[in-house]
């Protein structure tokens, strides 16, 4: 009996030792947050953005929009080598999971930027965002990006929570054709009508807006957009 007891104790000790050994080696958790630390370095663990103003907030943007961008970076259609480098050898199913993950996050908004432009220019920005300029064929931003500018499912992004330098950088890239989307490429058409001052005014106004009560994009089909865009399934 005592012998069996000793064997039992020995076996238990072995199990305990084995458990300890396994634990020492450790395994990362299977969460997306753990898998996506490479994204967090520039976009924050929940896509909230970091101090560096060139890297955009991803959290809460519609999954379809985020997926389109991931695919465009992977295939070098949207040109930014550090992103292409990260995504080049990842399957599209994983890109979809990444898009779903960041789309579902709702971290708090950053404090609105304090505009560094004149009052006139800020008002010009507000006018373009809310009314557009039909004479110059510039639709109001809210017509597509939503009355609260939080975008619409599945593929129109929010314009809020972004820094002015990122917004003007992207509008500039659309204007000069270095950022493109599937035809018909509506943002390229719209941005082609903007002047440098328009871009500055839009970046200042949009980045100074406070967080809306609901950060979520509008459900698909909530309103009718004035343009047909290739990035948005019709």
């Amino acid at each position, binding site marked *: 009996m005592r012998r069996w007891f000793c064997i039992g104790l020995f076996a238990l000790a072995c199990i305990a030792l084995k458990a300890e050994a396994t634990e020492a*080696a*450790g395994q990362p958790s299977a969460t997306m947050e753990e898998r996506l*630390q*490479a*994204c967090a370095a520039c976009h924050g663990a929940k896509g909230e953005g970091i101090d*560096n103003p060139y890297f955009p907030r991803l959290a809460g943007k519609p999954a379809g929009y985020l997926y389109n961008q991931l695919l465009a970076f992977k295939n070098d259609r949207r040109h930014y080598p550090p992103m292409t480098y990260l995504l080049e*050898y*990842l399957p599209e199913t994983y890109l979809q999971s990444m898009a779903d993950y960041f789309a579902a996050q709702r971290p708090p908004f950053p404090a609105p930027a304090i505009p560094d432009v004149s009052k006139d220019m800020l008002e010009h920005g507000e006018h373009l965002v809310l009314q557009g300029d039909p004479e110059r064929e510039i639709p109001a931003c809210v017509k597509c990006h939503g009355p609260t500018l939080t975008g619409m499912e599945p593929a129109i992004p929010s314009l809020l929570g972004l820094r002015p330098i990122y917004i003007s950088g992207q509008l500039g890239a659309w204007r000069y054709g270095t950022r493109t989307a599937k035809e018909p490429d509506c943002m390229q058409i719209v941005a082609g009508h903007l002047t440098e001052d328009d871009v500055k005014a839009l970046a200042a106004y949009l980045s100074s807006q406070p967080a809306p009560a609901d950060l979520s994009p509008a459900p698909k089909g909530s309103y009718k957009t004035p343009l047909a865009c290739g990035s948005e399934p019709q």
Partner: protein
Amino acid sequence: MTSFVRHRSGRSARLASALLCAALLVIAGDALGEDAAGTFAQPQAELSARGEYLARAGDCIACHTAPAGKLFAGGRAMPTPFGTLYTSNITPDDETGIGTWTADQFHNMMHIGRFPDGGLLYPAMPFGSYTKVTRADSDAIFAYLKSIPPVNQANRPHDLNFPYNNRALILGWRTLFFTEGEFNPDPKQSDEWNRGAYLVQGLGHCAMCHTAINALGGSSESQAFEGGLIPMQDWYAPSLTSNKEAGLGDWSIKDITDLLKTGISARGAVYGPMAEVVYNSLQYLSDDDISAMAVYLKSLGQGSLPQPSASDIPIVESSLLVSLGKATYDAHCASCHGADGRGQPPHYPPLAGNQSIQMESAVNPIRMVLNGGFPPGTAANPMPYGMPPFAQSLSDDEVAAVVTYIRTAWGNHGSPVSPAQANKLRSAPLY
């Protein structure tokens, strides 16, 4: 025992039956008409399925398909030290592809590096490796390429600097660096070893990166698989023969097959250009073929190169680097790789004892710290864990310090690296 022989004889048997079918077709041609074509279709389908697999083993897609481009329509830019080459359309389009080629002409291209008109291929096409491919395998790949949808897309002319735009120079290159000849099995080795050697030396064209390229763009057979810096990419392709580099002599077969097939293993993960090879090619190979490659690669890792040369960084400076390096490591790296450098394999590779960190060339560990990266997404590891880039958050001093630390901590035998080395690689091409 006989897997290699079986492969070869299997292929011969298939070829023989295909030839027999063809002969019957000729004899019975008019009488049987379309029915005969129908019976011929089956072996042809088998042949092209086998060709598709072999095209995977040859990683043809990596160069001959442009990003988001049509399959095998070419047009991908290949930067070389001699200018930019644009890959060719290898779809069966009559006008712009290989639609009018014969199996003989295709084999000539693979085996001796010549176009149907006798013109010379630039050696960016690895015919120095493909020359080892058997005629039967070449025919299967050709049958597959003939079966894919033709794409009418003209080849873009190469953009090479003088004097490399003169194709006649290739003759000189060939004299120095090209040896024609099908793979010759080594009767002293097992069939599995020979199958692995055939794949590694032939379709796998591993020597294109893992053998040093000299100033003439050639590689010497005497230095086969001894490693080298990949031109234009600024990644170091480690030696496959030295156990101090990527020599796999002391790896288990399981760790090697895991690495090749899934991209991760208990000993380390693939990254940089090797991630492409696993993503587009190796993950699709059969377990038998991957094992055969592992057996052959493990056998290569017997030799060893001299100890890494001593660092030219003064001792005082390198001890400062190590203390800054430990602080940087504990703050940014230890949460995944462990304070003891043991990592959490296979997802977070161990750094202690990791050959790829301690090699004489510090290019790869510096680039991993600067650029981070994901292992390739494979069927066995579809959602890999990524390493964050640190280029935007660490200074040159911190990068040099942390790389110096991981190269020398936990009994690692690497040499210190300088902030200037780290700085230089900030501008390395990412894509």
